[in-house]
């Protein structure tokens, strides 16, 4: 098992390096945004670009980039958005806002989603099941900005319970700050609830009809005992990796929700970097989102293996 985990991790690192390399070169191939004429930093910028090897072959540029990365963990300086500030520092400054909003959201949505899924599965083919399944389907289909709009319109505008956008400060644990985050948390929650509800329902209905459940009942367990001890455990084989994946995913957040509710997070930074062609921030964002995506997949795969030793995702068939 350990060997499998190490193999998978090494493979992920390889994939990550290749993606980084490709994106790095593609980004460096873009024409540089011109330095505004008369900018007092013009000379400094030119010197810095020279030092980064902008006039050298791409492989050499990548080597310079890697050297900076491994010796000083230097991701470069922001050129357009926040002139002269280290990109990494900016990024770490924005990360907590993204994380905290997503963390709040999944902390309550995962239990709720699983509970709804269990309820629907136990009441299969009754109105409870139909209602939950229909709602799940609707929520999964409708894009998040539609309910973000509804939440903004109803809770922030008509009822005036919450402010429109998230506060800018950094006291993430104050009550006032929390209140300003609620709309964003709600908007993020629907999708997660629906996702977990659907997976749980599908898994549990399948498990409930399997033969070992019949055996459990035959040997004298009550329905509750059988469900809790046998059915739920088995269906958690699928759900728990999903939870792990979701926890990795909180780092990434949602670009759309961050934009609608003005969350001062990494999503906003990435979008601004794209619009103002701040390539150093963009490289870091690219690596960051790639790493998160790959890590989430990796964690899901490995945890499958640990939870249920019969499963080896991605290994030889």
């Amino acid at each position: 098992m350990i060997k499998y985990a190490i193999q998978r991790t090494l493979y992920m690192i390889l994939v990550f390096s290749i993606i980084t390399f490709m994106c790095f070169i593609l980004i460096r191939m873009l024409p540089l945004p011109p330095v505004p004429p008369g900018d007092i930093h013009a000379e400094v910028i030119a010197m810095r670009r020279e030092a980064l090897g902008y006039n050298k072959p791409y492989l050499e540029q990548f080597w310079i980039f890697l050297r900076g990365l491994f010796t000083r963990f230097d991701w470069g300086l922001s050129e357009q958005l926040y002139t002269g500030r280290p990109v990494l520092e900016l990024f770490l400054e924005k990360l907590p806002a993204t994380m905290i909003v997503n963390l709040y959201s999944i902390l309550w949505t995962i239990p709720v989603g699983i509970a709804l899924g269990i309820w629907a599965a136990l009441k299969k083919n009754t109105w409870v099941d139909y209602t939950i399944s229909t709602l799940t389907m609707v929520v999964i289909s409708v894009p998040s900005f539609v309910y973000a709009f509804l939440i903004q319109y109803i809770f922030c505008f008509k009822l005036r319970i919450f402010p429109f956008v998230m506060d800018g400060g950094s006291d993430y644990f104050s009550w006032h700050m929390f209140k300003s985050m609620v709309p964003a948390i709600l908007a993020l929650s629907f999708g997660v609830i629906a996702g977990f509800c659907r997976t749980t329902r599908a898994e549990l209905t399948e498990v409930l009809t399997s033969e070992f459940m019949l055996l459990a009942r035959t040997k004298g367990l009550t329905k509750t005992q059988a469900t809790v001890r046998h059915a739920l455990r088995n269906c958690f084989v699928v759900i728990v990796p999903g939870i792990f994946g979701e926890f990795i995913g909180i780092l990434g957040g949602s670009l759309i929700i961050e934009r609608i509710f003005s969350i001062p997070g990494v999503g906003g930074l990435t979008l601004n970097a794209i619009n103002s062609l701040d390539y150093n921030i963009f490289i870091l964002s690219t690596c960051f989102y790639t790493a998160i995506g790959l890590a989430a997949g990796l964690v899901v795969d490995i945890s499958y293996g640990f939870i249920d030793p019969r499963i080896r995702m991605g290994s030889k068939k």
Partner: protein
Amino acid sequence: MDNKKTSLDAGYERIPAEKFRFVQENEELRDKELQTKSRSFFADAMIRFGKNKSSVIATWILAALMLFAIIAPIVSPFDIRHNDPIYINYPPYYRAIADLNIGILDGAHSMSGQTDNSLTALRGIAVETGFDPLLKITGTHVSESINKGQVVQRTTYDVEVNAYYQKGIIYRTFSYDEFRKVQEWQNETGIQVIYPYVESKDISGISDNANLWYQVNNKGVAVLDDDGNFIPAYSKNQEKAGAEYNSLRIPGDDGSYIYSYAMSGSVQCRVAYYNYYRYLNGMEPNYIMGTNALGQDIFCGIGVGARFSILFAILVSAINLTIGAIYGSIQGYYGGWVDMTLDRISDILSGVPFVVVTTLFQLHLAKKVGVVGSFLFAFVLTGWIGMAALTRRQFYRFKGQEFILAARTLGASDRRLMFKHIFPNGIGSIITSCALTIPGVIGSETSMTYLGIVNLSSFAGTTIGTLLSQGNSVVTSAPHAILYPSIFLGLLMICFNLFGNGLRDAFNPTTRGVDD
């Protein structure tokens, strides 16, 4: 038991021999021709699909939405390139229905905290132009405050006003030629566009509010006569008149009012914008879903955006389906190192976040192949991976089976085995996955245009994502601007998904109700 048998045997023996006859004596024995019609795989699936009520309803709604997308830009009197500079984010309005006064399509816009003076100002617009902006007073609040030792009662109202009428009169500068044309139009139609000029010296020096035509104090509040009527402040200063005016005059004008004000080489006029709009466009501003931040008709915009989204999604799905099917077939059929190499490639491609792909393609290719082309490439670059994985699974399932061995023994080539023998077996899941890919593509496309990473406005006119993003910034003042695109998109996505689920259940009856 024995007894029973003997009694049966006995009965059987008692049948007289002449009652027996041959089934066929001098005839050939043949199979009966099939009485029932044979049902193809697709017909079978369609029958199952028809039994799924929610999917059938979704299909009908989907058809209606598609029809809307096709028809809306045709029936809308407005072109998507028609931007009105004044009617921006204006609520839904249709003249004929607004006149019925039943509370819909009346251009209603709520305002709170209006004082008596602002109501008087609204009445001023109504008296002059004949269009009464005030629809109804929805609430009255009385507050008391103490000012200089005296209790002052202050009444404020929550009102609903017709935003189109509320605009009232604006200042416009015309060339002489255009001024003449407007007059001609007035004479033809009998609709008053140009109203008598008011010099700012007559209205306490206020020069930025064209709606004042009556005497006001220096705060811009109307000074009424004893009967509560407005006292006109129209200019009779013929020396200031900009150009000759031989057209409609307002009631109460004895011919002495001036209708234009001389500027250098042009004239300034007070025009009633609603009527001026009719002069400019030859129709009334019947925006049945209102206008957006660019002054475009939202009804038309949704249609135009949806046309693009749906066509684009179908195109993307078709391309991804083809690439994915071929890639997955090769992977699944050959297996071994081919499979592994190709798998690594798709692993790497699928690891790149979609935002990054889209951005890079936009930055690199937009100038060469256009915005849409580069957006399409971005979708194609990673979109086929799911399809390839699906096809690969199907191939692993079928390639070891006996009928393949039989075909191979009979000398079928690799290509024939792949596409004639194995591939058709997976066609059900492939169709299903295609039906579920389309809403996915629409969703991503909308997100990207919403975020502004891709701007398709110059190509497609507008897109749903662009409409939503424009509406989102004015969600409080003009909720209609985001409401209608949201409803449309929400319905479209739900129906596509229901339709796709229905297809999946129809093609794979064994997996009914299981979501994968």
